[in-house]
């Protein structure tokens, strides 16, 4: 097997992976970085992010306000020291990517503009039209070209971590074009492979978002943290699940039910004002908005469409000119895919799975419990988002913690030696054999798509916006059955080069493992918090028993073991998540109390 020796290997070349690669190259240009990605970097799913990246900017804003919004938005499941660090670094990282050429949208006097976003008290979301992720990704990719120490392995599919003597020593990947396996030795490995939204039926994600890195770390004993928290984005396209950015609501869009009524005011987010008000109505947090949709659906107040029950996202009052200027991409999306002109008709939308709050357990330095392993971005649970992510925090996360991961991995690599070559070669060969047996021809097996569809439907049924013990248990049972059937999955294509069917089979394996972690973590959390909401007697938040992170540990073919770990709470004790008018009142009271305490 071909062997490449790098100092740092990074799996995944999206926003987080590229930022980490640049950070290693800047920290120490003498270190070789192997940047391994199953797609060319500009195809990474960062490209689809639309709305913006948050960082305290305006003079009347404060780190404390961003901290408060994030921790309350996360329903107090955030690691508060991590959030403190995050909000403090945000602005500088946004300036750094601007220096690298990111075309941020501007105010008239040439400064970076900010917009309102869900759950944020004060406008602090930087944006590049409504294609922020696209611009950030291309800026990072193009900037990475400056550094000769970054060696890319484009279209290389990672199949395993190489762990020897208690430490990660590299990765094994398939060169997709030829089908050859490659061992990439590294002294430190950063996983930046993104989320796992594709395990659900209706999602905003691209085909590549299949939880690869999460599964790889998980299979090597690293706990996956807070996996039950899957974010439903409230405004997605029926049928495809494609995203209509939160910025639609930041610019003043309304959500209407079948009576043309702004129904969010019935769910503690009112009162309804004609102008957008931060943290109220359509600018409430995503979990609340998705939950409101579910209730409207139960009440029969949604609109029936060819792809299910929808509500209306009304942007007509913004006018065509403003829409074309501030929301050009979603204008085209509505027009081309739905034949709807947003300036003249409301857009049918419904919630779809968008973001994986949980992931590989990471400390404030992005280090995993397994030495030599780091994780960053959506695949990682570093502790910012808790039980519900605020929009525009994740793009900033890629920058802030991408840098941390790069710096930490570089530091680690400098003081480490490569592993024993023959031991690593043996492990790499074993990984290859394992892969080949998964994708070997199996008589009478299910098609990949059959298993994938059953998994995705079951996850939507059991682990949707609202959950109950019986539905979650049914999903757990179904996943166990699917894992058994997966052992004989049918792969028709036996070619070596460009065998994408083989890769789909491997991705299905990753998804089944990650889905199990999600479903079992959800079943065990007997409370409702953030985006994990139950209907079976556990409708309330339970800070006594469940102010804790869930930790799912891989048990092979058996169900994962779910344990719990403490949440670091430093200066904001758990309070009430209040939005709308109630939120303003609550904020005023709690600030007064904080002032009195000081």
């Amino acid at each position, binding site marked *: 097997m071909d062997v490449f020796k790098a100092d740092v290997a990074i799996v995944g070349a999206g926003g987080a992976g590229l930022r980490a690669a640049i950070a290693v190259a800047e920290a120490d240009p003498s270190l070789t970085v192997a940047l391994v990605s199953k797609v060319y970097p500009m195809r990474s799913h960062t490209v*689809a992010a639309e709305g913006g990246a948050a960082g305290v900017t305006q003079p009347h804003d404060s780190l404390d306000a961003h901290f408060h919004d994030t921790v309350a938005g996360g329903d107090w499941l955030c690691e508060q020291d991590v959030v403190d660090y995050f909000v403090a670094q945000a602005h500088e990282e946004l300036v750094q990517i*601007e220096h690298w050429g990111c075309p941020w949208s501007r105010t008239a006097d040439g400064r970076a503009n900010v917009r309102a976003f869900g759950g944020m008290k004060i406008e602090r979301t930087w944006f590049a039209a409504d294609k922020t992720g696209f611009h950030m990704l291309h800026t990072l990719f193009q900037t990475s070209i400056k550094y000769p120490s970054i060696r890319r392995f484009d279209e290389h599919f990672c199949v395993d971590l190489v762990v020897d003597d208690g430490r990660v020593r590299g990765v094994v990947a398939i060169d997709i074009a030829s089908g050859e396996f490659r061992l990439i030795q590294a002294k430190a490995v950063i996983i930046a492979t993104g989320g796992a939204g594709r395990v659900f039926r209706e999602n905003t994600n691209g085909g590549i978002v299949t939880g690869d890195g999460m599964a790889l770390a998980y299979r090597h004993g690293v706990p996956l943290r807070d996996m039950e928290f899957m974010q439903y984005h409230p405004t997605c396209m029926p049928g495809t699940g494609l995203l209509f950015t939160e910025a639609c609501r930041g610019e003043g869009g309304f959500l209407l039910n079948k009576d043309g009524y702004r129904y969010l005011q019935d769910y503690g987010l009112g009162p309804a004002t004609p102008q957008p008000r931060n943290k109220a109505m359509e600018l409430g947090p995503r979990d609340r908005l998705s939950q409101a949709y579910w209730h409207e659906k139960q009440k029969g107040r949604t609109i029936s469409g060819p792809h299910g029950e929808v509500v209306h996202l009304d942007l007509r009052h913004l006018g065509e000119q403003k829409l074309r200027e501030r929301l050009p991409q979603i204008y085209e999306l509505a027009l081309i895919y739905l034949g709807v002109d947003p300036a003249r008709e409301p857009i049918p939308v419904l919630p779809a799975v968008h973001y994986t709050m949980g992931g590989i357990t990471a400390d404030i330095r992005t280090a995993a419990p397994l030495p030599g392993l780091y994780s960053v971005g959506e695949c990682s649970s570093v502790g910012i988002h808790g039980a519900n992510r605020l929009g525009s925090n994740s793009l900033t996360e890629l920058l802030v913690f991408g840098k941390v991961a790069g710096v930490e991995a570089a530091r680690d690599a400098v003081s480490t030696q490569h592993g024993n070559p023959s031991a690593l070669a043996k492990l790499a060969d074993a990984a290859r054999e394992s892969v080949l047996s998964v994708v070997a021809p199996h008589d009478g097996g299910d098609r990949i798509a059959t298993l994938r569809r059953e998994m995705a439907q079951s996850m939507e049924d059991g682990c949707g916006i609202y959950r109950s013990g019986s539905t979650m248990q049914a999903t757990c049972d179904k996943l166990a059955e699917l894992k058994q059937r997966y052992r004989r999955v049918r792969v028709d294509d036996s070619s070596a080069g*460009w065998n994408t069917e083989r890769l789909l089979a491997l991705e299905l394996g990753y998804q089944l493992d990650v889905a199990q972690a999600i479903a079992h973590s959800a079943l065990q959390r007997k409370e409702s918090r953030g985006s994990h909401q139950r209907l079976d007697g556990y409708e309330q938040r339970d800070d006594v028993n469940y102010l804790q992170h869930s930790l799912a540990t891989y048990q092979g073919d058996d169900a994962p073991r779910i344990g719990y770990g403490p949440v670091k709470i430093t200066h904001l004790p758990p309070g009430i998540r209040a939005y709308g008018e109630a939120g303003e009142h609550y904020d005023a009271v709690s600030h007064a109390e904080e002032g009195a305490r000081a």
Partner: protein
Amino acid sequence: MPEAVKSVELEVLRYRPEQEDAPVWQRYRVPYSHDMSVLQALQHVKDELDGSLSFRWSCRMAICGSCGMMINGKPALSCETFVRDLLPGPVRIEALAHLPIERDLIVSVDGFVKKLEGIKPYLIPKEPRTLAQGEYLQTPEQLERIESFSSCINCMLCYAACPQFGLNPDFIGPGVLALLHRYNDDSRDGGRAQRMEVLNAEEGVWSCTAVGYCSEVCPKHVDPANAVNQNKVNSAKDYFLRFLQPKGATR
């Protein structure tokens, strides 16, 4: 009329180098629905009929640039091309023109990526600025100058459209030259002189004969034809100014 259509035929150009010398056409019949994209039709083939059909895709919303292919003879993104506009069929699907086919609908992209890497596609600031000084200032009008050219998703439809690239694969090509222009025209950038050599080369702007099909097929309205042809003037100016300036002078 659309409700009467239950299925549609696809004709796909296959190429499996491990089995055959040259590409062959293969037919598939897939169930039809009104909002189905060509990508979804191909996914049905791969999921249910023939797992060996290989093609690139990801985002499904025309922003990742993966799914470019020839659909009924025209370069298009399969995720935003709808079967309802191609009825009654058959829908002819082939790998992007002018690029070598590696397998089925998969073309060689690394030539394009190498060209992209070769133009210094990053901001070379006109003047230094520390992070503490905050962002460079750029007015909305200055930003609008580069808005279209910075929208390229690297889908390579323009390369499939450009006959000059088809005839001469060394031509840097519309997409990469548009990106070069995006950086030259960015008000914060001062690297124009460093990128001149690429522009001036035979394989730079001078391989372009203003066919204009690239801008026609571009799904993001980047207008690469404009980027390339504007720069013919710049390249000519640079050539003649060279005689007026002493050696070693920088602009």
